[in-house]
């Protein structure tokens, strides 16, 4: 399906992916009683953060992420997206790690789980990181900075 005006968009794959993410988060909520927030789970797995989620569970969830990616690659075929250079990845990674730790969550915890619950903290967090992300890309584009080859 092609979205009028946006020939490069993949709305059906996006919606399908979103539904899978929603099902995963629903399984964590209704099955385990937890928020499927990846930054928090990563912090828990590595011992950086404390939470009542068993550490083994945190590792299993993280292990599932690349396994799920493999599943999609096996069905849909390999794809080779371009990533930023190592130096850029380090800067971005540091910001993402520090920011999600300070802000108590990322796209999954705040953006999916919190927004759907109408949590005021998550609504504000999501609005903030969206605006910051949009501004960052706009400024980098204005400066002619290309990060993806």
């Amino acid at each position, binding site marked *: 399906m092609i979205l009028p005006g946006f020939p490069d968009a993949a709305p059906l794959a996006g919606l399908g992916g979103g539904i899978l993410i929603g099902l995963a*988060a629903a399984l964590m909520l209704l099955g385990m009683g937890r928020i499927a927030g990846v930054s928090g789970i990563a912090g828990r797995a590595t011992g950086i953060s404390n939470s009542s989620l068993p550490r083994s569970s945190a590792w*299993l969830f993280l292990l599932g992420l690349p*396994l*799920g990616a493999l599943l999609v690659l096996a069905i849909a075929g390999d794809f080779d997206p371009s990533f930023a250079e190592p130096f850029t990845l380090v800067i971005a990674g540091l910001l993402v790690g520090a920011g999600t730790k300070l*802000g108590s969550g990322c*796209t999954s915890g705040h953006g999916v789980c919190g927004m759907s619950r109408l949590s005021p903290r998550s609504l504000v967090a999501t609005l903030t990181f969206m605006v910051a992300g949009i501004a960052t890309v706009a400024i980098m584009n204005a400066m002619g900075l290309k990060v993806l080859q």
Partner: protein
Amino acid sequence: MIARQLPVLLAGILFGAGLTLGGMTDPARVRGFLDLFGDWDPTLAFVMGGAVIVMAIAWAFQPRMAHPLFADAFALPTRRDLTPKLIGGSALFGVGWGIAGLCPGPGFAALVIKPMSAAIFVVAMLAGMVLIRITEKDA
């Protein structure tokens, strides 16, 4: 024990599959979505919309359950206070997300798509978390 762990692994697999199918492990797709004032790619709005709708239904069920299906009790966030830390942290995260087009979940999922790049991102991200933990302990 196994009965309690399998749903978590399954949730991780579903999550990773959804991220990959939806385009979140493709930094160009993510940065295209954030490029609102340029060549905007709305795909991620569909990802977010699909996920939020399913989760909103789950939230509607949650209060009617005495306990989760595979665990003894719900352990959910209860804070409602808006703090400078929440907003400042989310802003930092947004800048990092915009720079490389990666957030935490796709970083882990992409370990099998672009192993070296994803590993660098994930290690730096964990280092960023450690940095905050250390400074907060000193404070």
